């Protein structure tokens, strides 16, 4: 079995399984441990220049990856007009740089401030390291391996989709430069880390707040009455 098979055919399934099983188990058995673990209370100024660009940037970039995964044809069609291709590429690169700047600030803050170190677990360090490598690879690719938005849709999306439909096809992926392959591997490491780290906060983003009435009243003796006034 070649290394490619282990890393890109077997490991993805292992990672997804770990992510699913462990995050559900943790949610059901250790829901106290699900938290954003905000450290803003201890330090605010540097969090602002870290957390804000990081989150807005990463959500934009991840959405981009997801959209192209869902609609590769449309992505390629969009890119067939050069101006539109440039706009997309520049947006993606800018997003990547914003993410990078935010992350650098988060890392400096986490390691450089005594108060923040007091609330830093070994997993926080591992997570930031993985994210830093992953983001650096992404930015490197965006700068050096041009027209990623097109070749991602044409080459990587078919690979990812083949995994998705349980018929893994590595033929295209194995042709990619190793920087790209590392970035793909990083994504699956990220998934595998998710349930063991503070990343679980993405699973409990409180969407229900959007439609919930403001007040919550819970009746212990007669739970059916519980509302929500």
């Amino acid at each position, binding site marked *: 079995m070649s290394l490619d098979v282990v890393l890109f055919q077997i490991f993805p399934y292992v990672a997804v399984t770990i992510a699913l099983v462990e995050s559900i188990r943790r949610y059901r058995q250790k829901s106290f441990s699900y*938290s954003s673990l*905000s450290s803003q209370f201890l330090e*605010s100024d540097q969090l602002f220049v870290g957390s804000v660009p990081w989150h807005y940037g990463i959500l934009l970039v991840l959405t981009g990856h997801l959209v192209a995964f869902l609609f590769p044809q449309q992505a390629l069609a969009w890119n067939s007009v050069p101006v539109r291709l440039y706009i997309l590429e520049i947006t993606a690169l800018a997003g990547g740089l914003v993410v990078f700047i935010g992350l650098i600030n988060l890392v400096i803050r986490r390691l450089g401030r005594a108060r923040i170190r007091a609330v830093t677990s070994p997993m926080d360090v591992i997570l930031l390291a993985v994210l830093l490598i992953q983001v650096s690879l992404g930015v490197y690719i965006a700068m050096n391996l041009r027209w990623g938005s097109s070749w991602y849709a044409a080459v990587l999306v078919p690979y990812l989709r083949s995994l998705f439909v349980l018929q893994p096809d590595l033929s295209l992926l194995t042709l990619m430069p190793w920087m790209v392959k590392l970035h793909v591997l990083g994504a699956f490491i990220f998934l595998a880390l998710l349930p063991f780290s503070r990343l*679980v906060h993405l699973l409990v983003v*409180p969407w229900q707040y959007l439609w919930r009435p403001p007040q919550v*009243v*819970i009746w*212990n003796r007669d*739970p059916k009455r519980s509302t929500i006034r």
Partner: protein
Amino acid sequence: MNVRLQMSMVFHLDKCIGCHTCSIACKNVWTDRKGAEYMWWNNVETKPGTGYPTRWEDQERYRGGWVRTEKGDLRLRGSSKGKTFGNIFFNPHLPMIDDYYEPFTYRYQDLFDSPEGADQPTARPISMITGKPMDIEAGPNWDDDLGGSPVYAENDPNLAAVTPAEKQQLFELERMVFFYLPRICNHCLNPGCVAACPSGAIYKRGEDGIVLINQEVCRGWRFCVTACPYKKTYYNWATGKSEKCILCFPRLETGQAPACFHSCVGRIRYLGGLLYDADRIEAALKVSDEQLVEAQREIILDPFDPEVIAAARANGIDDMQIKYIQHSPVYRYVKEWKLALPLHAEFRTLPMLFYVPPLLPIVAAVENGTYDSSQAGLFGAVEQSRMPIRYLAQLFAAGNEGKVRYALKKLLAVRTHQRMKTVGDVDAGAVHAMMAELEIDAEEIEAIYRLTALATEKERFVIPPSHREQAEEMLQTDLWGTKGETGFGFVEAPVRGA
């Protein structure tokens, strides 16, 4: 009519001696833990003063509570649904640990372990967050008894309401006045913390109105800390969850008063049930500032009214509870006697902790400590008060001086009446004139005197039974299955996530 039961509190400020016993009782029971060292679910501040966290009343800075919009709707001052999602990565209005104080201890062991030398060994202060040596710049009750007035007391946000002359007089050396303000969570009817929590982790218990944070559902988005205008939800920096006063519900459920009430040396605290109409909450909040105190009184219902009793029964409040509510000291102070007032009603959370405003700093103002019974009449002390009524009204009546003046006059009338009875050096005609002006009789005065000065523990804490015997059914578990395992197996240790 949607009748609900609310556990409610009255603090009689004339009786508070500022000993902080309540704070210590609470600290020992609930917050003597990592991440909670800085929290004082119960704290006692000196007024005038900036309080804890520093200048917490300044909502321009902390953005707590609700505001009434031009159209007359209510909205949270600090956030909205949209803003919550925009600001979730960074809350622009979060108070910082230094707004409270950095918790510290001392390296006592150094006193024993230091090598012999020319200098006396010292126990250096170290931070309880980082464990590193630190310079202590603030601590609990840093400004107790007007300590550091130019920095603290003079920056009290409520002083914006008083005139420069009054302010100068307030801080005249050797004639300063102050009083103590003990604070816990108000267990509001329209809590800002609940409305701001995106996870829905904070809720009001239907049975007794206690506001709680479900630690298993809290995800540390930290919006409750901003939304509570009293700054009574606290972020535990170690566990990554918010916490607050729980009104010692495990004690209440077994008929005991909360730790701070039970330990109160001045016996200033009263606890009892109130019935209120949940359907009228919204209307009571949409009135102008001036009318807020009255509107809040309005929605508190008369527990002797047969219609109210019927509606209460229909809502699951049983006869035993109603009987206890009829004996509630809180009902008497708040509704019957109109002596107890809510703190900062203008925050519009409908706080259910009420304060009898302090008369002592007021009568002490009149020369030589004797009452002025000459031209100004026996109420002269109230009118010439050194503690400006405007200031007290800012705290306890959303600026409505009439409400504070009425309460103070009544307190003065009770005092003068009792002095007439026991010492006999007050003119009976003048006392009766006071009573006539306030439209009260000797019976009411006696009752106020009794509950204020003589009340026993059972009269001060009238706790409607919460039927602990049904607690097991409440959890809806298999009774035989859980037999013999209470306390084992189903409590998760509060271990911080990775």
